[in-house]
């Protein structure tokens, strides 16, 4: 190797090393600039339907709580909401998309409770913890992966509590409720989605509690209104034409449908007192109706509690802490109890809510 060649090689090597080091420095600087600010927890939230008042308010609570927790935790919490429009196919695509976007946690209000296994398998493959809420997946599916959880309330309790409200009124105000005085409680049931677990259990339990207590009951009619206020109003309009004031009690699987019944009473200018109308969820509009006596009662599905628990669970999983230290977990599920709300409890309940908000 002559002197010229040696010199050329030496310069080449030096230039190469400088070039590589410079590029490395530039890239690292850009990367640090990009990563300025606190770390970000990214949560994908999939709703079965944005039309559902209870779910909408639950998710709204979740977002507000997350915003408040950001400053406490010193992190950013980015929430991406997607609406499944009551289609499991749409929701599957949305979850797949959230997984490709590399979200840290998935919160899923599943459309079809029997379809959870695919979602859990996808989440497991991507190593993204998945939290189901309010619509309980099949237990065997949930147990497929240790990072799959459920947060919600036990469905059978809500049905029984509706029954308890009706039973208490029957015992306390028999003359008002037993309109035809035959000693038999005539009722109708507005059911949620056909085949949905909450629909089946609430429909069965609400009347079971009444009959188990020795009250004779007669079902005039029942039908599905898909959790929907307008559909419930349409059903009730035709039932009222058919049965009129024979209807003594209306059990609705949720508050939106109960409010649909109330809409009909008002549209048809039925003179109060209306039949006993009992819903589930304790939405703000239903609480208002209970307070003014147009609805007889509702059962609190603790949307605020569910939102709070989902957020805490998400944070625990993000920080790789054991959620069992914070929650009582039974079969990977965290249960929040239902609570009956009638005119007797409404004032106390509203005061509690106001205090909690302030």
């Amino acid at each position: 190797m002559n002197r010229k060649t040696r010199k050329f090689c030496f310069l080449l090597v030096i230039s190469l090393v400088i070039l590589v080091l410079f590029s490395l420095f530039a890239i690292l600087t850009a990367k640090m600039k990009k990563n300025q600010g606190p770390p970000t927890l990214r949560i994908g939230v999939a709703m079965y339907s944005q039309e559902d008042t209870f779910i909408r308010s639950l998710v709204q609570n979740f977002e507000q709580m997350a915003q408040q927790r950001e400053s406490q935790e010193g992190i950013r919490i980015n929430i991406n909401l997607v609406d499944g429009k009551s289609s499991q196919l749409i929701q599957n695509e949305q979850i797949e998309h959230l997984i490709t976007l590399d979200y840290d946690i998935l919160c899923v209000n599943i459309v079809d409770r029997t379809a959870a296994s695919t979602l859990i398998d996808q989440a497991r493959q991507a190593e993204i913890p998945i939290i189901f809420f309010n619509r309980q997946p099949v237990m065997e599916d949930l147990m497929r992966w240790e990072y799959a959880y459920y947060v919600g309330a036990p469905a059978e309790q809500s049905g029984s509590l509706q029954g308890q409200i009706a039973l208490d009124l029957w015992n306390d105000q028999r003359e008002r409720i037993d309109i035809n005085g035959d000693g038999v409680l005539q009722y109708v049931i507005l059911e949620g989605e056909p085949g949905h677990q909450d629909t089946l259990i609430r429909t069965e339990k609400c009347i079971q509690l009444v009959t188990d207590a020795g009250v004779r009951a007669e079902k005039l009619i029942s039908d599905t209104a898909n959790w929907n206020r307008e559909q419930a109003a349409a059903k009730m309009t035709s039932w009222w034409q058919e049965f009129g004031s024979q209807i003594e009690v209306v059990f609705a699987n949720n508050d939106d449908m109960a409010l649909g019944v109330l809409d009909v009473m008002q549209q048809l200018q039925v003179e109060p007192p209306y039949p006993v109308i009992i819903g589930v969820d304790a939405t703000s509009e239903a609480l208002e109706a209970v307070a003014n006596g147009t609805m007889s009662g509702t059962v609190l599905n603790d949307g605020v509690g569910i939102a709070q628990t989902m957020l805490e669970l998400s944070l625990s999983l993000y920080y790789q802490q054991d959620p069992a230290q914070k929650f009582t977990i039974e079969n990977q599920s965290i249960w929040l109890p239902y609570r009956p709300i009638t005119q007797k409890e409404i004032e106390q309940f509203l005061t509690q809510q106001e205090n909690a908000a302030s």
Partner: protein
Amino acid sequence: MKRKLSNFMQLGIVAALGISVLLSIFIQEVSFPTVSENRMEISVIFREWNSSTWGEIRLGMEKAASDYQAELRFLTPQEANSPSEQQHLIEQEIKNGANGLVVIPAAEQVLQLFSDNKITVPSVTIESHSDEQIPCFTPDSEKVGQLLAQAAAEDFTNQATALLINPLPDNTGIQERLESVQKYLIEDHFSILSATSDNWTELLPQSDFVILPETTSAVWLLSFLEEEQLAIPLYTVGYSQEIINGLENESIRAAVIWNGYGEGYLAVQQIASKLLKTPPPESQPAVILVRKEDMYEPENQKILFPIGH
């Protein structure tokens, strides 16, 4: 000696090349961003949150975010319409590295941030204009006011008294709409009473109709009128379910509506275009005056009863 030096040089070359290879591999690893790092982050700061008022706008924003690979952060002051809280949120988002901002300003004070050049990232406002060159996606306030005043003038003679309510006196967008209403009512020689949220109940009995060009407050006023069983016609703006119900039962005589979904989409698209250096959108939401009898016109139905975006 010469041979030793030559061997040493060869060894040096091999070592340097080896290091270069290793560094190149390392560079590759750090230089390719993760999926989440690659997405632009846009913070959307509302002045208050009410899903029936803002839900459509948000859906439009989410669609644009999905189309442009952006991630949205939706933030709302804990106290509705609090300018100081909103200012804090804006500053915090910029500090934390937001790539863009969409702001629905609560008051003039928030717009001042734009005028003072404190906003260092691409931004857009909705509802209220900033004086500076910040794009704003909102229906034309002048036109909104004109349509509301014309609707009232069709229903009442100028012997009638109009009550103009401004629920948010510091909000420039709402203020501009009301100024326009007032201008056209004065041209038609109507008597006008002006009120804020503090004194409108006192003035209500003296008025024949009410004009309130802000959706959330109008919904509140509707329920108040219903509770008090007062049949005073209302003229307002918006396309929420409560406004639709009001049009249906004629407690609202007329409402100015526009495509909120499009408004939200355009706002996010504007920022995404700026960040991606592509041509920005230029259209603005068009306004339509709707009464009960023309609620079901095809064009109005698209806004009042949107089916699955």
